[in-house]
């Protein structure tokens, strides 16, 4: 396929490059600004006219954030909840997805449709009663309040089912004839073939759980079990001082940078996961 390299075409191409890269810089700007801000003093951060770079790259803001909120504890809480929820999601979604994809039984289509519909139910519709249920079960301020609802992810079931459908039936039938139980089939044969889907689902689930805000704010209010997101929000409180954006920036940096590092390390898997979703969902 030949492309005529006319002047106008070159100009268009150049324009495209510029647009994309300038756009990219603009997109990154908030993060850069956050990092710069986390090293500024209160005077610098509220100065008019604005200062671009901090005069000294002090770590005092981070110290102060650690003094205001118990960062290690919050981090642990968020991490623990995210990991547990993710593992739970992977297990339950694989099991359900396999059952719906490869086990022929009456009502499997109906159940799949049912689970699919829950994907389009707005979470707000279930919020108030979920809170009431968690409250009555006495789970407020316990990790279970966040983990339990997160164990079933209809999106996860959907994804695993679609993926598992593509596993050739012959493999499974052969295993069944050999006397393998269904669970063994799932564990030893199906799942190893589904690692991309598992990886994507795992990453999605983890990211979503880590940055969830409303639900943890409602059910985990005690400082021992609070999550990182809810804790960061307290940097806006009166105690922290309303104008102390430098603390807010430092706190944001603490919340964002680890996630970004993980993201950059696994970005191909993550983006691939979204792509898969797009292809399946769009098809």
């Amino acid at each position: 396929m030949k492309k005529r390299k006319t002047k106008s075409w070159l100009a268009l191409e150049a324009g495209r490059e510029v647009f994309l890269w300038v756009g990219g810089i603009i997109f990154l700007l908030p993060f850069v600004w956050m990092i710069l801000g986390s090293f500024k003093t209160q005077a610098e951060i509220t100065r008019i006219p604005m200062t671009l770079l901090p005069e000294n790259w002090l770590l005092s803001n981070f110290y102060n954030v650690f003094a205001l909120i118990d960062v290690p504890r919050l981090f642990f809480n968020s991490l623990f909840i995210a990991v547990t929820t993710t593992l739970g999601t992977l297990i339950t979604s694989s099991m359900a997805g396999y059952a719906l994809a490869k086990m022929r039984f009456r009502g499997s289509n109906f159940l799949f449709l049912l689970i699919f519909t829950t994907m389009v139910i707005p979470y707000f519709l279930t919020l108030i009663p979920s809170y009431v249920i968690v409250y009555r079960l006495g789970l407020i301020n316990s990790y279970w309040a966040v983990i339990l609802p997160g164990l079933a992810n209809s999106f996860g079931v959907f994804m695993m089912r679609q993926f598992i459908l593509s596993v050739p039936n012959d493999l499974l039938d052969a295993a069944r004839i050999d006397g393998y139980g269904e669970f063994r089939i799932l564990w030893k044969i199906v799942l190893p073939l589904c690692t991309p889907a598992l990886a994507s689902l795992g990453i999605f689930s983890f990211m979503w759980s880590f940055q969830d805000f409303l639900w943890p704010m409602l059910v985990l209010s005690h400082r021992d079990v609070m999550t990182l997101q809810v804790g960061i929000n307290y940097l806006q409180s009166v105690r922290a001082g309303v104008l102390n954006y430098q603390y807010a920036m430092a706190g944001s940096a603490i919340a964002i940078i680890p996630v970004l590092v993980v993201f950059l390390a696994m970005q191909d898997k993550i983006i691939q996961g979204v792509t898969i979703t797009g292809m399946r969902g769009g098809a």
Partner: protein
Amino acid sequence: MEKKKKTLNKKTRRTLTAVLFLLPVLSVLTVFVFGPVAFTFYISFFKWDFYTTPEFNGLGNYINLFTRNVAFQTALINTVMYTILQVAMTIGLALLLAFMITERSNVLRIVYFMPVVTSAVADGLIWKYMYEPHYGLFNYALSFFSLPTPAWLLDSQTSLLSIVFMDVWKAVGFYMIILLAGLKGLPRTYYEAARTDGASTWQSVRMVTLPLLKPALLFVLIMNVLGSFQVFTSVFMLTQGGPGYSSLTISFLTYKTAFNFFKMGDGCAMSVVLTLIVLAISVFQMRMFRKGGMMEY
């Protein structure tokens, strides 16, 4: 005779195993989705302050919402406006970027996707700081070019728009990747045929690529609208619905009504209304796309 017995056992055993495999998901979904959905509908007909016994109120809560509750009426309009603006900008930008990026380097993909994975709370803090009328980044840049400097989050006219901008920034990367995937799957033959027939780039895109992209676009639209209607964290972090009622959205109002004012019944009624609207819009979108009405121009 013996063979029949064996098959029966296998079938029941298979069904039982299937049920067992589905049990975790189904039980959690029942407790935290199906049950609550029913419960929300049920409570929406009562007045309940969470600590005392609920009182039956019939359609009273719903009538109240549309006649007396000024906050709700404004929130409804705001939410619709917010959704229209946010979806239009996000999908428009995502589509544009998807077209432009097609064969580009991976770096750009990563850059545009980064806001998607970061904490909404932290992003809210950063943007709140950038929106500061005095020492914030945006007004500094604007004043640098001698442009007017709005009060952003403190001005009723711009508060909702400010939230939209941040949310577009957060969402574009995600939908761009999905649309990219959609674009990749399209056969180039039709597009090339149109080009050789003398159609310009724009016409070929319009007549060939976009219609072929319909399924992906529909998917993206529905997802975005669904998410948009439930916007909460952005409003919570940036404006708390203010100033006045200018950036109040239904989800934020529902949260306040249920968890600050302790009016569970009214909160549930609001959730139901929100869901019905979202459902109606999704159905409408699917109809439009099937007819091809939107895309025929």
